[in-house]
């Protein structure tokens, strides 16, 4: 009995490893289809193993050999299901002149650079979107900042006029009714008025810095993604997790 326990473990491990490899090879398939194929393969292995004269490692290896390699299965599945294979880093080769020109121009002449980046197949669409958004949002932040600055400073000017009136009146005609209520309130009003004037300016400073910074950030992101292209679509960890879950 103990002798059969160990081969069984090895058998299960062989099957699990094979299915994991298939899952990774099929990573670019829609999850539902991938799961269906994996379930079918698992059932097939169980049936084939039950039909085999012996349920040992050799029998499983034989069954898995007949099933085809994970890469063969994945290629066939893509052709059958009409899914184009994912462009791999190897297929794309090394980044070329276009990619480096795109990064440099994104920093210097943002609109032209980002167009070049979009014309390159090297970056994934979502990375291009992020790089574009960094640039666009930077410019939008500046625009909104300037608009809100002029609005806020406009209201603070009118507030100044209103606030200045009792001060002027207080100095010009020292009446007992006007001075006492405005007197104690005035230091705090002054303080808030100063904040109201300085606040937008403090906010605007980083926004102004963003004007040259957003293309730089955009270019920096593209450069980062050139070094770290990332896996396309599903990550293998999710896929392997799906195998264990089912």
């Amino acid at each position, binding site marked *: 009995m103990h002798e059969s326990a160990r081969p069984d473990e090895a058998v299960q491990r062989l099957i699990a490893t094979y299915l994991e490899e298939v899952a990774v090879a099929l990573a670019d398939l829609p999850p539902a289809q991938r799961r269906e194929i994996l379930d079918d*393969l698992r059932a097939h292995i169980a049936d084939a193993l039950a*039909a085999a004269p012996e349920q040992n490692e050799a029998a499983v290896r034989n069954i898995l050999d007949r*099933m085809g*390699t994970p890469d063969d299965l994945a290629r066939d599945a893509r052709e059958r299901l009409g899914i184009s294979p994912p462009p791999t880093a190897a297929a794309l080769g090394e980044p070329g002149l276009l990619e480096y020109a795109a990064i440099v121009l994104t920093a210097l002449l943002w609109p032209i650079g980002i167009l070049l980046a979009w014309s390159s197949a090297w970056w994934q669409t979502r990375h291009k979107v992020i790089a574009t958004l960094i640039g666009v949002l930077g410019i939008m932040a500046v625009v909104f900042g300037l608009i809100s600055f002029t609005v806020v400073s406009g209201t603070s000017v009118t507030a100044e006029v209103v606030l200045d009136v009792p001060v002027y009146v207080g100095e010009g005609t020292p009446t007992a009714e006007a001075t006492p209520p405005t007197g104690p309130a005035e230091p705090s009003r002054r303080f808030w008025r100063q904040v109201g004037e300085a606040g937008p300016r403090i906010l605007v400073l980083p926004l102004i810095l963003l004007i040259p910074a957003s293309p730089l950030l955009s270019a920096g992101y593209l450069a980062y993604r050139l070094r770290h292209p990332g896996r396309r679509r599903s990550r293998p960890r999710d896929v392997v997790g799906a195998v264990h879950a089912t």
Partner: protein
Amino acid sequence: MDTNALLTQMRRGALEYCVLGLLARGEAYGFELVQQLGQTPVLLTSEGTIYPLLSRLHREGLVETEWRESPSGPPRKYYRVTPAGEVALEAFREQWRAFRDAVDSILQTGKAETGAS
């Protein structure tokens, strides 16, 4: 190498209908189908490739599936041809006959002529 690639292409087109044809004889589960196809090794090289094919037939509505308990091990998915599948199979039968006859008539013409003269 070339004949291999050619065979792969021919197999790809015909295998779907061979599976449909087998299922038209009676419902079957995946491993059964593989065994039946395996009797003619020309048709199926990597056995696992039948499952993406079945998945596609299912999505196209040419076969329907049903899970049933198996006497040994996990439940089995049985495949059955739908009426749409029957229609597709009949259409392929006619096309295949015409195709086969056309290819045969050309390939055998040479033989027939040399045989006649």
